[in-house]
């Protein structure tokens, strides 16, 4: 069963940071890249993408420049800043710890009682 996963709360920022860390992208490109690297397994509310991009730019984690898109249209390209890279590393570490802990917790098996 390959049902698509709803995004966990707070993970969109991390996904965006990861996506633009691979190279500058415009908004639609961010969406495509996340879908591509996740193997189409994640559902992103397309409307929530832009507020998140604006928020990250507001916080200085990503920066933007206006350039030309593939179809020669004016487009806004987002790229990772140094602060954004730090934040990506930090959040990645946090995520890994979290998922490790969740893994351990969920894989716990009852210890057979010794008679």
């Amino acid at each position, binding site marked *: 069963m390959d049902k698509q996963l709803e995004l966990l709360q707070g993970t969109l920022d991390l996904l965006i940071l990861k996506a633009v860390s691979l190279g500058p992208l415009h908004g639609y490109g961010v969406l495509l890249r996340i879908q591509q690297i996740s193997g189409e397994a994640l559902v992103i509310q397309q409307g*929530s993408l832009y507020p998140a991009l604006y928020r990250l730019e*507001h916080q200085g984690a990503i920066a933007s420049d206006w350039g030309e898109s593939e179809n020669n249209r004016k487009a806004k390209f987002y790229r990772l800043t140094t602060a954004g890279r730090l934040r990506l590393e930090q959040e990645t570490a946090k995520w890994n710890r979290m998922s490790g802990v969740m893994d351990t917790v969920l894989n716990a098996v009852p210890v057979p009682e010794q008679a």
Partner: protein
Amino acid sequence: MRRLRILLVRLVSEPRSWFRATAQRQLLEDEMEIELASHLENLTSDLMRAGFSPKEARRRAHIALGPPVVHKDAMRSSLGLRFIDDLTADLRYAARRLRRSVGFTAVAAISLALAIGANTTIFSLAKQLLYERLAVPHSTELRLLAWTGTGKHVAVHHIWGDYSPLSGGRVTSSSFSYPAYLQLRSQNKVMQDLFAFKETGMNATIAGNAQPVQVEMVSGNYYAQLGIRPVVGRAVLPADDASPGQGAVAVISYGLWERMFGKSESILGQVIKLNNASLTIIGVNPNGFTGANGTQQSPDLFVPLSMQPLISPHGENGSRLAEAKEWWVNVMARVKPGVSDASAQSALDGQLGAIVRATMPVRPNEDLPRMDLRDGSRGQFYQQRTFAKPMTVLLTMVGFVLLLACANIANLMLARGAQRQREMSVRLALGAGRARIARQMLVESLVLAGLGGAGGLIFGYFGSSLIPKLTENAWERSEFHVHFDLMVFGFTAGVTILTGILFGLAPALAAARTRIGSDLKESSQSVTRRRKGWGGKSLVGFQIALSTLLVIGAGLFLRTLASLNAVDVGFRTDHLLLAEISPAAEALSRGQGRGTT
């Protein structure tokens, strides 16, 4: 470390991004539009490539992206623009509402403005009259020497200066004889150096113009002890005050310098005549310095006490400086660190008793003056005796006016809030947040309060300059100024505006608390519904009570004023002129009464 760096970047980046967004708002809106449109376009062409018809592709793209208006709103709030956007909307709405009910706005704003203005004026006046200290460094260290004695039996008989009864048949005065001052000063170990001064009116000829002036005769250490340095020239020094009849110099007040000399630097060395003695101007006092005698007006001239025999002669040989029986100079000193007022007073008291016994005849049934150390930070503080009572009455009156204005505003706001409960219900039903509604009401109250405050500022400012004009009369130049006191204004404005906000907000919150449906139903059923609660009624009662009090008070005042004006003095008062002559003191032969009206 890393977290700190991320935080720092945010701290720099967010304000910058906010300012850019606020300053280039139109650009931002255009960019958002372009971004969302190009997203839609990309999505549509991708869907078309996947095999959908153009129309179907566009429809699906629209559904996938969702409503752009909502996204744009979210993008704006990502940039922190939400608050300012809401605020502008609130302001615009508030302005519209207030414009629509001009009557309400005018009544509320004018009553606010009047209350703030009147209170600022009167409180400023009171503060200045009763609380202002001498304009010298560390004025609270100053102590004024004074004495008390029994009214009928005190050994001091000749006083030129203040003399007032105390309770229990005792009297008090802050005048000392010059020999007593000199001895007190030389024996003093409990205070810093004692200095003396005496303020009196004289005739002066300045730049060819004869005019009445106020003169403060000061001891040589006066300037050094007060810590005042002239802005031009030098101060009166101990050398000027060394021997009687010597030291023909004068320091002039800043006011006189401005008025008579146009602030010219070349006044130093100019000669003025003071009661026929010629004095050389040696300096100009700093602006705001009013002498040691009082805080309200500065004497025009400051001359050494040694000049007294020439400019203010008295008795057989003209001099008071050697007379132990004549008590006339005021004495002040700063406290000495580590010596309490009580111990200083008892030490000085002992010395004073000995000095009086040694220098003056004391009859057996007479008692010695007892030293009384007073706060000297306000000089002699005459105005307390004159104004303390009237000011209390006035302050109580305007206090009531302030209270009434607050009640007024409170009631207006409450009534308005009750009136708008239906509007609130509708807005709640349409999905407005309670916090949002409360904020809207707050903004409205603030706009109203701002109008009132601005009016109050104007009233207060003009009121402060009006009061000196009311006290003017034909033959006395009034140099009395009421400074517009920003702190007082802040207080009165704060109180009234806070009332407005509080009572504007209360009904809104009440409305926001009620359940939407019930309130809508209730208010639609009965248009003239009884107002809930006792708040409004008791406020009205309070208002009427206060207004009655004020109207009666004002009526009494006016009636008294009118009767005073209509008093029959026994002769015709029209076409009469009042003239005052103060002849030079030594021009009169001895034994004759001196310069009086």
